[in-house]
């Protein structure tokens, strides 16, 4: 049997079209409605409630908790203040990304790490010779992501927290109704939003409280499909979709450094020793040979491919996650790993790995599109990420 999240009692009743999927061994809703558009719209227009419990979660405490994290991740842990959150990748000894996630400094001595893949073994290997406790709280804690322009308004009706003071990538312990929760101003949508961490035993209560409070604000439960579109617009990568964890990659070529997946900003070269430091310093000096960029597919060239077949342009209503070749003239210079039609930007978008010389914003490349069983190319213009970055995200 697959696992179910602490919110399953509520979410399962809402899935109207049996659109289930797997996420890290959990049974999860792809969408609640038969059609995910309304769920996506809520993320950008009102607010959406997304069950993100399948994230792996670890509570790290003990004398060397900070040292463990500092040696593991690429950002400088010594600068992470209590109540602050980092988004960060972490690497193996060769500077290739193992996983990415968040590190929250819960208080002076306790940290929480979230990751896409199970990290217990890696943390234990990293903790050799240190005094540290790593507790896997993945199943003990439920997590909800409350995302959208009205998320703050909704929260303020049920929580005493000073939400105005809770800045982007900050964390507080508070309550929702009388339920103790951890609240971070984070998310995977690139919008104003919060992630809420709760004891699994009180998860259903939390769901009910938020849904009740959100009703007047149009709060809508959203599934993975809606989230996927939002994260592509926000240029946020997904492990084993946009890059392979170096622990999963079956070949060397499949591995990526942070510089190659647009996370160079999250590598702190001046910090103390950490996994991959030497390799990353060399790569920085050399310049990465790959870049991870956005692609905006030019509508006219796209439409023309369909018109030639007597068809209207076909736009999927969910994101795609297959590898698609990208060309410069006749030569393949990269590949896109996921993409979608952005209902908000009215553009067809993709996230792509490009060889460095072809990665400058504005470069015009060709992306493969299969039209009526034939491989065609549409023009795609290289763009900086994110595609969508509203002011409210950090305001």
């Amino acid at each position: 049997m697959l696992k179910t999240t602490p919110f399953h009692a509520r979410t399962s009743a809402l899935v109207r079209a049996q659109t289930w999927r797997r996420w890290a061994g959990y049974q999860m809703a792809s969408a609640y409605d038969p059609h995910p558009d309304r769920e996506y719209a809520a993320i950008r227009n009102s607010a959406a409630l997304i069950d993100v419990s399948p994230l792996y979660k670890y509570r790290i405490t003990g004398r060397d908790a900070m040292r463990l994290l500092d040696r593991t991740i690429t950002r400088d842990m010594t600068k992470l203040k209590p109540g602050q959150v980092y988004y960060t990748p972490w690497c193996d000894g060769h500077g290739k990304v193992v996983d990415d996630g968040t590190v929250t400094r819960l208080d002076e001595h306790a940290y929480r790490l979230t990751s896409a893949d199970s990290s217990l073994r890696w943390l234990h290997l990293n903790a050799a010779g240190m005094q540290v406790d790593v507790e896997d709280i993945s199943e003990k804690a439920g997590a909800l992501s409350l995302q959208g322009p009205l998320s703050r308004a909704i929260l303020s009706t049920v929580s005493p927290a000073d939400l105005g003071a809770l800045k982007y990538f900050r964390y507080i312990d508070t309550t929702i109704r009388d339920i103790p929760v951890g609240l971070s101003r984070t998310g995977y949508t690139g919008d104003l939003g919060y992630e809420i961490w709760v004891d699994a035993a009180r998860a259903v209560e939390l769901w009910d409280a938020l849904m009740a409070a959100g009703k007047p604000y149009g709060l809508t439960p959203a599934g993975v499909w809606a989230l996927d579109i939002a994260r592509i617009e926000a240029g946020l990568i997904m492990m084993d979709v946009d890059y392979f964890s170096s622990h999963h990659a079956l070949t060397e070529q499949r591995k990526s450094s942070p510089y190659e997946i647009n996370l160079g900003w999250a590598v702190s070269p001046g910090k103390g020793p950490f996994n991959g430091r030497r390799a990353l310093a060399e790569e920085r000096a050399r310049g990465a040979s790959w870049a991870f960029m956005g692609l905006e597919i030019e509508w006219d060239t796209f439409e023309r491919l369909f018109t030639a077949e007597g068809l209207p342009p076909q736009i999927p209503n969910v994101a795609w996650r297959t590898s698609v070749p990208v060309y410069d003239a006749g030569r393949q210079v990269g590949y896109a790993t996921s993409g979608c039609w952005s209902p908000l930007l009215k553009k067809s978008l993709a996230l792509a790995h490009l060889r460095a010389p072809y990665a400058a914003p504005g470069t015009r490349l060709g992306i493969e599109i299969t039209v009526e069983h034939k491989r065609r190319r549409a023009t795609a213009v290289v763009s900086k990420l994110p595609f969508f970055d509203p002011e409210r995200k950090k305001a």
Partner: protein
Amino acid sequence: MSERVSSTGSANAYDVIVIGAGANGLAAATRLAQAGRRVLLLERADALGGQGAVLEFAPGFRAAPLGIDPGWVPPAVARSLGLESLATDTSDAPLSVAVAPGSFLTLSRDAGRAAEAIRAHSAKDAAAWPAFTARLHRLADFLGALYQTPSPDVGLTSMADLPALARLALKYRGLGPRDMIEFLRILPSSVWDLLDDAFESTPLKGAVAAGGIQDYRQGPRSGGTGYVLLHHLVGAPAGMVRGRLPWAGGPGAFTAAAEAAARRAGVTIRTGAAVTRIVVRDDAATGVVLANGEEISAGAVLSTADATRTLLEWVDPVWLDPEFMHAVANIRYRGCTAVVLYALEALPSVPGLASPEALAGLVSLTPSVRALEKAADAAKFGEISEHPHVEITVPTLRAAGLADGGKHVLVARVQYAPYALRDGAAWDAARRDALADRVSAAIEAVAPGFGGRVRHRVALSPRDLEERFGLREGAPSGGELGLDQILFMRPVAGWGRHATPIRGLYLGGVSAHPGPGILGGAGWLAANRLLEDGRGGKGRS
């Protein structure tokens, strides 16, 4: 631990710090000093010698508890250290095995004489013996060649290694087709199979097989014991099937000569100086911190302590790759040998033993391979053998100076006494005494009246060996000699050539290639590597 950092920014007093003044440390320090490096040799104990150290275990009685087999100095090391003239005692030190109380089979180094003795048990075996020992000698000799060069490794071998590699390949070819195959066949084989294929006499097989399990927590039936047998025969003269020749000047002769060589070369030696930390800055070793808090800076550090202590206890883990640390943590040490030292009023009388001189050689009290295997069974489950394998020697027969007043010392090596006991039980005095009682009883069985001649008895459990000699898990091997822990896999895969992931930090103890019993072998290779890498400054020259 004190974090006092007192580096002044002025030039280091030393180019290289060598940790541990056993055979390897002395060899490494000497080699480095000869190359012009200013070398500081640090020894935790008050005396030098490491595993070869001689202790006064009872008033007026001395012994080298781990020196039953004195080991072998590779010619290249001997040359480098000027030890060519260090003499071995070439008198015949036979291997004897108890067939039954009052009856021994004694194998002289002279194959003809040994064959003569074997004939009483099996004419067929007697006929096969000379060829068998000659083959062991040839194969061990080839292993010896492998032990004097950095171990070849796939992918790591550089152009500069090619000449040495070609020499090895030629030497291998020189074995001839039959021995080329035998070499490959014997390494993974068990001594049980090896001896079953060769002989029919039970005590003969038992006598030789014990070499395949020496300090190895496996029984003779285990694959790889064929290699262990050969390993302990590297450098042994033809005809010998256990151990190597003792020093003419007694067990302490090697250490004394090596110390003199080190001092001649200008090495500064400090005893009672226990390292607690290796200082690393920017991925490079820059010195050590001693137990008293003193920090000593140097351009490079060469440790002859075991790989686990050096890398996992002395280096801050943040400098090491987690997978690498995991590999180091997985090194199997598994000490399983105990030593019992007896101070004797008089030489024991052993009925049936060819001559009293046989006691100067090695006397195995285990009459069969099966009995060795049975003894090993207990160790698998963390238990002490009910009938341990005991082998004894009386070193005072050759080195009378070890005991005052014409008295004698008997050293018993005992297997299996696993370091890690079942359910975490402790190696307390009661267990140690119980084991020593079993050993005394086993000796008494072949030497009636033995107990009456014992003036003192000191038993050293693997726990004691760990404490006294700094041997992790009490293992003289510095990492058991499994086929996955030798050559380019020693101490861990990919790091078989004495360097470590920390720049300027080298491993040159028995944990490193070529391992235990090859005196100075690892230290000398590690020193060469350090010099090739140009670490530790250019020296004064």
